[in-house]
């Protein structure tokens, strides 16, 4: 148990380190001179040299990575080229909005998928099952940059029930959360259904029924516990994915989170800010994945002995 725990922590730490290094050299990937791309044609040689020094691009790559890594440890991610404000402060301002959206989207997904997937598995080939499978296919096929405008059109423009965009008015969270959560809800619905169907066919469930337990008890005390194990993994992994999906959803709804900050910074070629956003989202992703692993380790004794 302790050994596999330590292994996982170490692996997560190494991945985080690799992520920081990759982000540090991200600017190096710009074809030609990144400084030209940022300043445009009309810049003087002095401007260029100044920016290059400010970004540390005049130093060797290894030194750049080391400097960035050192900065990350001190929570210093450089300054925005536009506003001159520290990137860490910008991120801290925007993080609550993204966390709120990702959490709400995740809740939407779980709240839709658990009942729908369970009903579909229990009443196989019924109308519920057809609804669940149709929803599962549609949900993964409708991208959130289309679903968002569709919901906006229906609930904000036509019905006038909810605000179109922004985060200030009450109810503003509803449409972005639905938009972000739907695709995950579709994936989870399919998984819950498949997983529960598989478990319901197992001997131990038949044994539980044979000893005269009620259906409800068979389902909740016996089947669900095992059926939900693989679902928990996906729920966790996808929570990390939601952080990335938030980039597009935030853009659709002008939701002032890290994703919107990143898209704005890309438009302004403000690369230190872009780097900071990529770093924050990646580290969030690694952390969530690690937590998922740990939950799984705790919930499934079979995983503990393996690895």
């Amino acid at each position, binding site marked *: 148990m302790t050994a596999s725990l330590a292994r996982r922590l170490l692996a997560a730490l190494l991945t985080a380190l690799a992520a920081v290094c990759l982000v540090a050299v991200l600017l190096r990937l710009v074809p030609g001179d990144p400084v030209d791309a940022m300043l445009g044609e009309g810049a003087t040689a002095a401007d260029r040299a100044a920016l290059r020094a400010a970004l540390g691009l005049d130093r060797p790559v290894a030194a750049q990575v080391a400097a960035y890594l050192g900065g990350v440890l001190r929570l210093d991610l450089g300054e925005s080229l536009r506003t001159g404000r520290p990137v860490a402060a910008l991120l801290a301002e925007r993080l609550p909005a993204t966390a709120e959206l990702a959490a709400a989207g995740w809740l939407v997904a779980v709240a839709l998928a658990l009942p729908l997937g369970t009903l579909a598995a229990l009443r196989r080939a019924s109308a519920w099952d057809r609804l669940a499978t149709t929803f599962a296919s549609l949900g993964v096929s409708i991208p959130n940059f*289309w679903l968002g405008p569709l919901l906006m059109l229906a609930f904000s423009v036509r019905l006038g029930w909810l605000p179109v965009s922004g985060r200030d008015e009450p109810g503003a969270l509803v449409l972005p959360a639905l938009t972000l959560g739907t695709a995950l809800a579709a994936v989870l619905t399919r998984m819950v259904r498949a997983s529960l169907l598989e478990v319901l066919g197992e001997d131990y469930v038949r044994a539980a029924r044979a000893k005269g337990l009620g259906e409800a008890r068979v389902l909740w005390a016996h089947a669900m516990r095992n059926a939900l194990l693989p679902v928990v993994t996906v729920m966790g992994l996808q929570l990390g994915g939601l952080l990335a999906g938030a980039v597009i959803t935030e853009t659709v709804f002008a939701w002032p989170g890290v994703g919107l900050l990143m898209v704005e910074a890309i438009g302004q070629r403000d690369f230190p800010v872009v780097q900071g956003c990529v770093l924050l989202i990646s580290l969030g992703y690694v952390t969530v994945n690690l937590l998922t692993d740990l939950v799984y380790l705790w919930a499934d004794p079979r995983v503990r002995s393996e690895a």
Partner: protein
Amino acid sequence: MSTGGGRRSGAGTGVRLAAVVVALWALLALLAPWVAGDAGAIALERILAPPGSPGCPLGCDDLGRSQLARLLAGARVSFEVALASVAVSATLGTALGLCAGYAGGRWDGAAMRVVDVFLAFPGILLAIALAAVLGPGIGNVIVALAAVGWTGYARLARAQALALRGREHVLAAVALGTPPARIVARHVLPLAWAPLLVEATFGVAAAVVAEAGLSFLGLGVQPPQASWGAMIRDGVRYLLVAPHAVLVPGLALAAVVLAVNLLGDALRDRLDVRLRER
């Protein structure tokens, strides 16, 4: 994703319909330059004209350009990007995965660590970051998507190679002194392709969404070139007065993605492949 029940076996109507949609998409993409008409023709007198107006059967956008023409031009872009990025990432990923799995040991470990690093980033985020630094344009979109997409193929191919390298026909080839590269190509790959093909089908759907997503963010093809994602982005501004500007490209996009996904499901059932969960 694990398979659903075995209910969907054989080609149902849904699958046939999906095949028709995909075939139509491919055909229109190939013929777009000839049948689309001028996707860039600006006509100020029919700005945001609704579907059915003269000259624009599917309506016009904010510059009075025909949505039908732009839809067809966009079909070509999405088709090109999807095929090219999947071809590159599937080839690279498969080659790397097969070699790693067949070689085993240190090489395998090193290759899989690289895969892990890529998987540490959420795919779409990495694609956005790459597209942002590479700059806009169809070629860069393909590079960004291929750079993100290869890991799935590498993992699958590695698992297949690991399972196959102990098989007797492979051992026989080794005993005959066949060079490793030839063994991988001739004796391992032919038995390993089924899950890779299924993965590639889903990969096409994912690439279509990703291309449209990048274009939606302004990181894909640049104006005046048409892309479904860019059409949706431009349309959102006129949601109040001209909902067709968002509905038309979105419907095309969702139909193609749904159709490709359904074909992937059918293929998976047909080949009886269980893709590993990610």
